């Protein structure tokens, strides 16, 4: 066993000891989701309807995919504020490839993923090589991506009217029949499985935990910390790119002026799901549940016609409550 592997092994062991409480947080989050479902189902007959459940799933898809990426970064002890506007920039690039340059759809989708990955790589390089704190580096990227999305699109939405297949990629259903759920939902589930495999079964995932648990020890044991960090930010960027493709397909257009604020929902999903902002802890399942909690809450409160001001207050309260529960269980 090399020293790098042993340091990582120690970090993993530390994490294993936390696994028990990690599982508690997930059970807690899942329990909260069930409770929300129960409350809303009793409160309104219109909540537990097939169409509405599909609506909740669909409303989770974009935020869920963004949250997957941000989970990796938070586990390393970093933060990514650029996921929302990188999503927008990726959507614009996909639209440019497909609707302006009339290239085949797969190329457009690849362009979206690549744009996200590239932006993430820049984030990672700023953080790892230039030692710019992640908050600042990704705040800079938030603005750069937002500005570029506006510049490249010429401040105008770009539509996919010549390629109706693109909209069907997200809104059609490969399942069909009784399980007529839009593909965007399957994309979220597929991406979650991929993310979970990367996080738990690959070196990249192990190093993400190691970096977040003890970056210095990881560095001293010979791991090329900078390279792996850059790779993790790039991966997060690719998930933003996927989010960009999804939102463009659903809206049948790339809307250059939206995206800001989406990063906060993504971070909230990860945090509600038990990802610790101090790094070293988190799970994909938790993040996905967190994303569902947010969209279920939003949907349910709307179904009950709760005034919007109060919806915002409640959502904020839930985030604080989730973090507080996390702190309480850690103190034990």
């Amino acid at each position: 066993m090399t020293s790098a592997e042993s340091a990582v092994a120690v970090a993993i062991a530390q994490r294993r000891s936390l696994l028990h409480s990690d599982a508690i947080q997930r059970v807690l989050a899942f329990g909260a989701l069930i409770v929300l479902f129960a409350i809303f189902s009793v409160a309104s007959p219109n909540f537990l309807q097939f169409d509405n459940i599909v609506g909740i799933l669909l409303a989770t898809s974009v935020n869920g995919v963004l949250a997957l990426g941000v989970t990796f970064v938070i586990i390393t002890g970093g933060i990514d504020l650029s996921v929302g506007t990188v999503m927008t920039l990726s959507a614009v690039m996909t639209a440019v490839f497909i609707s302006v340059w009339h290239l085949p759809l797969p190329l457009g989708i690849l362009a979206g993923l690549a744009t996200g990955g590239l932006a993430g790589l820049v984030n990672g390089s700023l953080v790892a090589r230039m030692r710019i704190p992640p908050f600042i580096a990704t705040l800079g990227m938030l603005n750069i991506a937002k500005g570029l999305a506006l510049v490249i699109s010429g401040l105008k939405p770009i539509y996919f009217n010549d390629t109706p297949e693109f909209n069907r990629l997200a809104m059609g259903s490969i399942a069909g029949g009784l399980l007529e759920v839009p593909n965007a939902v399957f994309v979220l589930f597929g991406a979650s499985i991929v993310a979970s495999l990367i996080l738990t079964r690959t070196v990249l995932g192990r190093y993400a935990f190691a970096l977040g648990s003890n970056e210095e020890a990881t560095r001293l044991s010979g791991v090329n910390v900078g390279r792996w960090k850059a790779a993790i930010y790039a991966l997060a960027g690719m998930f933003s790119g996927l989010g960009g493709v999804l939102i463009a397909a659903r809206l049948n257009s790339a809307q250059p002026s939206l995206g800001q604020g989406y990063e906060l929902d993504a971070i909230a999903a990860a945090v509600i799901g038990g990802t610790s902002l101090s790094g070293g802890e988190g799970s994909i399942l938790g993040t996905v549940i967190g994303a569902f909690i947010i969209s279920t809450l939003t949907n349910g409160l709307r179904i009950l016609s709760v005034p919007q001001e109060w919806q915002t207050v409640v959502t904020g309260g839930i985030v604080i409550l989730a973090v507080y529960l996390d702190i309480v269980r850690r103190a034990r």
Partner: protein
Amino acid sequence: MPSLRVLSAASSLCLAVVVGACAPAAAPAPPAQAPAAQQPAAAAPGAQVNANTYIPVISKGFQHQFWQAVKLGSENAAKDLNVKITFEGPENESQVDKQIEMLQAALDKKPNAICLAALDSKAVVPLLEKAQSAKIPVVGFDSGVDSNIPVTTAATDNIAAAGAAADKMAQMIGDEGEVGVIVHDQTSRTGIDRRDGFVNQMKTKHPKVNIVDIQYGGGDQLKSTDLAKAMMQAHPNLKGFFGANEGSIIGVLNAVKELNKSGKLVVIGYDSGKQQTDAIRGGVEAGAITQDPIGIGYKCVDSAVKAIKGESLPKNIDTGFYWYDKTNIDDPKVKAVLYD
């Protein structure tokens, strides 16, 4: 020093935003001050207007289609009247502080007149008083200001326009039933006027129409979509849906499509944009109210020039609105005010 003032006023966060995204909007370099413009004769009756006359146009935004159309109108007027303008606005309609900084910076350039679409009609009053004492005429556009300082205001009567949308809605749903409304926000003048114009007209003229819910989507298409879907789920008997701006109505249209309710709901919108005009042509949307954004932009610069010359102006210039649907969407008069 204006730049210092901006620095101290803005947190580093805000500054990053300004540097990152507002800069392109301010791209046209401020014109060099002409000797004539530096003399305090700016607002004196019969002041000269020439190619060095500078009128900054401070808008509520720049990245939406609507503001791009206003910009086009103001640029057309500048070309026709041979004056210089700059057009800028904050990124979204809640950034009252950013707009005040822009107004301050514009005043510091000692312009001949200013055109302003105030985000917060009260917050700008102190700066307007400053403009008044410097004898710089102020022309309001898009929405009014709680002050007598603007020499005139070129705007759509949003209350009347939303009232007209309510009449059309009532007529199409048989003057009774449930209606949902999505508005862009609950604090801006246009948001309030369109909501109240629609709601009050229903209450007074169509009492059997029941507005079951009003929600706010921030003009964000994705959020408005999920919002509209939840409202349609919550109220299965909904007969009509009104979206009070472009982002809101696109959300409603997406929701109608995703829930396969096309043809089952009377959808009425506001403004234009390709998605909306396509929906009207295709029959998914019954029709919409359009303002005249190009006219608003043109009239504000035109009025500013008249104010510099010392001509008298009416207190309000109604720039008008049109109801358009499948039948008149290609009418040249309507087509001229629609944007893609």
